[in-house]
C-alpha cells in the first residue's frame, strides 16, 4: 500500500481537495470553513487553493446553509456543507427531512440532490453540551438519505469521495474523536462502494457489530478478549443507509452470537435496528439474543462524566460474557 501517514482530518481534507480539483461543480461552505479552515481544520487551505467562490463562509444559520445547498444542487452544483457540530445540525432538520431527503421522490427522480452534509459527530473529546451528540438515528430513519460513518482515515477519505460522487444526498458523519488520529492512508486506493460493511477482524466465537467511533472500541475489546481466549470478530457497518445485510448476517450466522456497539442512546436507535434485522435474518442461528452496548438513554453527559456513558471495552466484554455461553 502506497500510504501516507495522516490524521483523519487530513484524510477528509485530501478527499475534498481531490473532489474540488476534479470537478468544478463541487463547492464547500458552512460556518468558519473559509479563512479559519473549520474549527477542526478539516477545510484547511481550501479557500486559498480554490478561491472564495469554491470554499466560503456563510452567515451563521444552519437551515440557511442546507437550504441554500439544496438550491445549488438543484442547479448543477455538488455542494459539500459542514455543520459545525452534531447538535448544530438540528436547526437544519426541516430542510434535511422535508427537502434533502424527499426532493428526488417528490419530483419522480427529475430533481436529484447530489449534496453532502458533513457532520463532526459523537463524543469522546470532552466537549461541552451540544458538541457530542450521536444523531445518526434521526437521519437513518429518514428515507431518501444515505448515511455514511467512517471509522478509519482511509474510509473517511474513500467514503467522502464516494459521497461527493453520489447522485443522492449523503449525511457524512465524522467521528470527531478520531480527527487527530494518525493512520496510513492510501489516497490512490479505489473509492469504496457505498452500502458495504467491512469485516475488520475475523472471529469465530461472537461478532461485534459497530460503526464510526465504536469500531476502535470493538477492536480493542476483541484484542482483550483474545488474550482471554475468546475469538471475537468485528464488523464495521460504515454505511448505515444503505445497510449491508449480507455481510452482517453472514458473519453472525457463522458465530451465532452478536453484540452491537454504538454511542447513541439505545432506544429507537440504529443499534435497535441492527438487533432487529440481524435477529429477523439469523434467528435460528442465534445461541443468545443479540445484545446492545449503547449510550444510556440520557442527554449527553458533561465532559467529566462522559466516560461512564460511552460504551467502553469493559462494558462490551461484560455483555459478551452474558451471551449464554453455557447453553451451547
Amino acid at each position, binding site marked *: 500500500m502506497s500510504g501516507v501517514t495522516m490524521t483523519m482530518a487530513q484524510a477528509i481534507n485530501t478527499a475534498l481537495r481531490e473532489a474540488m480539483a476534479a470537478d468544478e461543480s463541487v*463547492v464547500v461552505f458552512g460556518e468558519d470553513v473559509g479563512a479559519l479552515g473549520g474549527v477542526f481544520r478539516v477545510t484547511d487551505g481550501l479557500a486559498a487553493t480554490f478561491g472564495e*467562490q469554491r470554499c466560503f463562509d*456563510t*452567515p451563521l*444559520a444552519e*437551515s*440557511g446553509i*442546507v*437550504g*441554500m*445547498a*439544496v*438550491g*445549488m*444542487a*438543484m*442547479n*448543477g*452544483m455538488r*455542494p459539500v456543507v459542514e455543520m459545525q457540530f452534531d447538535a448544530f445540525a438540528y*436547526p437544519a432538520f*426541516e*430542510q434535511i427531512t*422535508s*427537502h434533502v431527503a*424527499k*426532493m*428526488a*421522490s*417528490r*419530483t*419522480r*427522480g*427529475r*430533481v*436529484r440532490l447530489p449534496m453532502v452534509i458533513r457532520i463532526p459527530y459523537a463524543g469522546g473529546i470532552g466537549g461541552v453540551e451540544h458538541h457530542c451528540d450521536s444523531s445518526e438515528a434521526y437521519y437513518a430513519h429518514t*428515507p*431518501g438519505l*444515505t448515511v455514511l460513518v467512517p471509522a478509519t482515515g482511509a474510509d473517511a477519505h474513500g467514503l467522502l469521495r464516494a459521497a461527493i460522487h*453520489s*447522485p*443522492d444526498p449523503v449525511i457524512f458523519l465524522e467521528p470527531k474523536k478520531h480527527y487527530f488520529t494518525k493512520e496510513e492512508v492510501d489516497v490512490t486506493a479505489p473509492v469504496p462502494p457505498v*452500502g458495504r460493511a467491512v469485516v475488520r477482524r475475523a472471529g469465530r466465537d461472537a461478532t461485534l457489530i459497530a460503526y464510526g467511533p465504536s469500531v476502535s472500541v470493538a477492536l480493542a475489546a476483541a484484542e482483550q478478549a483474545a488474550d482471554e481466549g475468546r475469538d471475537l470478530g468485528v464488523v464495521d457497518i460504515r454505511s448505515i*443507509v*444503505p*445497510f449491508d*445485510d*449480507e455481510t452482517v448476517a453472514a458473519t453472525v450466522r457463522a458465530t451465532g452470537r452478536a453484540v452491537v456497539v454504538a454511542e447513541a442512546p439505545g432506544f429507537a436507535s440504529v443499534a435497535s435496528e441492527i438487533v432487529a434485522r440481524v435477529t429477523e435474518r439469523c434467528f435460528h442461528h442465534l445461541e443468545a439474543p443479540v445484545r446492545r452496548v449503547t449510550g444510556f438513554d440520557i442527554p449527553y453527559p458533561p465532559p467529566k462524566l462522559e466516560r461512564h456513558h460511552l460504551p467502553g471495552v469493559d462494558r462490551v466484554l461484560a455483555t459478551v460474557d452474558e451471551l449464554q455461553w453455557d447453553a451451547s
Partner: protein
Amino acid sequence: MSTSLAVDGVVQLVDEHGHAADPAVLPPTAELLAGYRAMVLARRLNEQAGALVRQGRLAVYPSSHGQEACQVAAVSVLREDDWLFPTYRDTAAVAARGVDPVEALVLLRGDWHCGYDPTAHRVAPQATPLATQLLHAVGVGHAARLRGEDTVVMALCGDGATSEGDFHEACNFAAVFAAPVVFLVQNNKYAISVPLARQSVAPSLAAKGAGYGMPAVLVDGNDLAALSVTLSDAVRRARDGDGPTLVEADTYRVAAHTNADDPARYRTEDEVARWLPRDPLARLRTYLIAEGVLDDAREAEFAAAADEMAAHVRHGVSAEDVVDPAELFAHVYARPTAQLAEQEALLRAELTEEAAR
C-alpha cells in the same frame, strides 16, 4: 425606475377605478393586454379547480382568486431561463409559466407530489412547508452566479411565511451573497385564519428589507401595471448583479384558505366585500377598454382561450392516470437499495394476489 423602489407609500399605477394617474410610467399597452389575458386564464383556472374540488375530482385547492395580478406579473417579468419558486397557492403562476395545469394539479389530485418536470420549465415544485423554498431559490440563484450566468430567481411566499425563520435566513443569505433573487410576498392578509396583525406589527412587511440591507417595495398587489414595473425593476437589478429585492404585494385572499376552510369563523363577509372593488381584473379591464385596446371581440377571444384551457383541465384531471405503486420505490435513491427492492417485491406480490382474487 426609482418610484417603484420607494419604501414609503404603496406603488400604484392603475387605481381601482381603472384610472392611471401617469400613463407615461405604465408598461406598454400590448404588455398590459397580454397580462389581462393571462389574468383571465388564471381566474378561470381558479374557478375550474374550485369546481373540480366540489365535484370531488380534486382533493383540495388553495385558490389565488383575487391575487391573479401577482400570479401573472411574477411570471411575465421572467426570461425563459429564469426560475420560479411557487407555493401551494401559486398554481395559476405555475400555469402562466407554461406548465400544463393538469400536470400542476397532479399534486392536488393526489397522484404524486409534483406532476411536472421542474427542470423543463424552471419551475420548482410547489412548496408546502412554508418559507423553506426561499432558501432553495437563493441556492439556485447563487449557483447560476458562480457559473457566470445571469439567471434570476422569482421566489414567492405569503404574509404568514414571513414569520418563519427560513424567511429570515433566505433574505439574509440572498443579501449577503448578492444573490439574484426577487422575493415576492403576496400579503393576502391571512395565514389560514390568522390575520396579518398576528404576523407582524411592523408598518409593512416591506419594512423587513432594511434589516437585510435589501431594497424593498410595497406595491398594490391588485395592480398588474404596478407589479410589472416593480418586479421588472427588481429583476433587472438582480440580473445586473445588484442583488435581491423584497417586494410586498398588498392583496387579499378573496376565497377561503382552501375548500376545507370555513372563513366565517374568523372574518366577516363585509371585510371581503370591501376588497371586491379592488379586483385586479376589473380595474385593468376598465383601463384597457378606456384605452380602446380591449373590445368585445378581444374579450370573447380571451374567454374562448379560457374555455379551452378549462376544458383541457377538466378532461385531464378526470382521466384515470394511475401511477404504478412500484414507483414509490423507484426514486428514493438513484439506484434502489436491496432493502427497497425487497419491499417493492413484497408489494408487487400483494398486488398480484389482490388482482388474482
